[in-house]
């Protein structure tokens, strides 16, 4: 495939019409939107549990050790041959990307071990 036409590009990434996961909806309607402070707000329960959805990056030795461990776990034999494209380099063509995308979506939902719990509500 030499050229990605506009037609195929448009179908590549689906735009969801409304948030389906709790994390997204919380971000959208608990953090944003008009606030009218003078009036009663109804009680929101159980939300604290899921607002900590994503891991905030904190510079610490623990974080560094975790990154070191992740890097050490990498299997570079597959990626070395492929040669990854960086954004500023203009990327590449669309060969085989659909497969990567589908796998990525799966990754995003399951995450790795210790993140599973934090992300559970995303599904």
């Amino acid at each position, binding site marked *: 495939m030499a050229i990605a036409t506009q037609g195929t*590009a448009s*179908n*590549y*990434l*689906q*735009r*969801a*019409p*409304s*948030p*389906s996961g*709790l994390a*997204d*909806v*919380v971000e*959208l*309607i*608990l953090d*944003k*939107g*008009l*606030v*009218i402070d*003078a*009036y*009663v707000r*109804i*009680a*929101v*329960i*159980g939300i604290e549990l899921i607002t900590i959805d994503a891991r905030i*990056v904190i510079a610490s*030795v623990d*974080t*560094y*050790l975790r*990154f*070191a461990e*992740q*890097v*050490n776990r*990498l299997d*570079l034999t597959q*990626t*070395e041959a*492929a040669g*990854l*494209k*960086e*954004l*500023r380099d203009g990327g590449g063509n*669309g060969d085989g*990307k659909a497969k*990567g*995308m589908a796998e*990525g*979506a799966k*990754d*995003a939902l399951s995450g*790795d071990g210790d993140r599973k719990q934090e992300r559970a509500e995303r599904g």
Partner: protein
Amino acid sequence: MVAVESPITGSADASTATALYLYGVTWAEATRPQPGAGVHGESVDAVAYREVAGLTSTIESTKVPAKRRDLLRHAEVLGTALEHGTVLPLRFGVVFENATALVEDLLLPRYAELVQLLGRFEGRVELSVKAFFREEAILAEIVQANPRIARLREATRDTSDGSTYPLRVELGERVAGQLQERTLRDRQALLDRLSRLALDVQVDQQPIEHQVLGASFLVERERVAAFDDALNELAQQQAERMHFKYLGPLAPHSFVGLNAEGR
């Protein structure tokens, strides 16, 4: 031009202890009933004042707990309303005593401001974009681009004893630094491409692991297709190292604000 009378629905007086939940404010002529679509499964009705209207549900009391489903319904009610016209979305959980209170405390005193805001967002929608690095791909990229990191990795692989501790800390710190650098660089590149198609942008500055970009774009409805194309092109180019989440069209949650109200 529709001049709708002040609400008559206030007849359910305070003694019944019901309350009026408010989702958002729209043009009175754009309101449509949404039976059973609201919080707690209640119907969504309109309380109009002159040309504006609040989208509301009568709920049993202010003490009712909100659940996951209610949060989703709040968003869905606004999404449906957006199909019929411009909507100013409220944050979740705002309740008025009754329809009279809604008119007297919000729609009437803030009328000019609400009309002006509705005008400002006419034909404009919010699109939410998130981009995340694929962990393995970005880490591999970092190792391959940095000889020092690659050497440290070789030196510390298959070890976890105290002797390599300083090397592992150095490795992790360098990886974290590279990750940060690539995040900022790629975030800017994505913003450069997408901002051209938007009237306004709100970027989430919270450093979330592997999140390259979290941003809301205010876009003319006519340009949503162009925005789709631009984002799809980026997603396709970056598929090996990033994945995206794309949401919209939404009411302008990230861009509305009343004077003297914190956002």
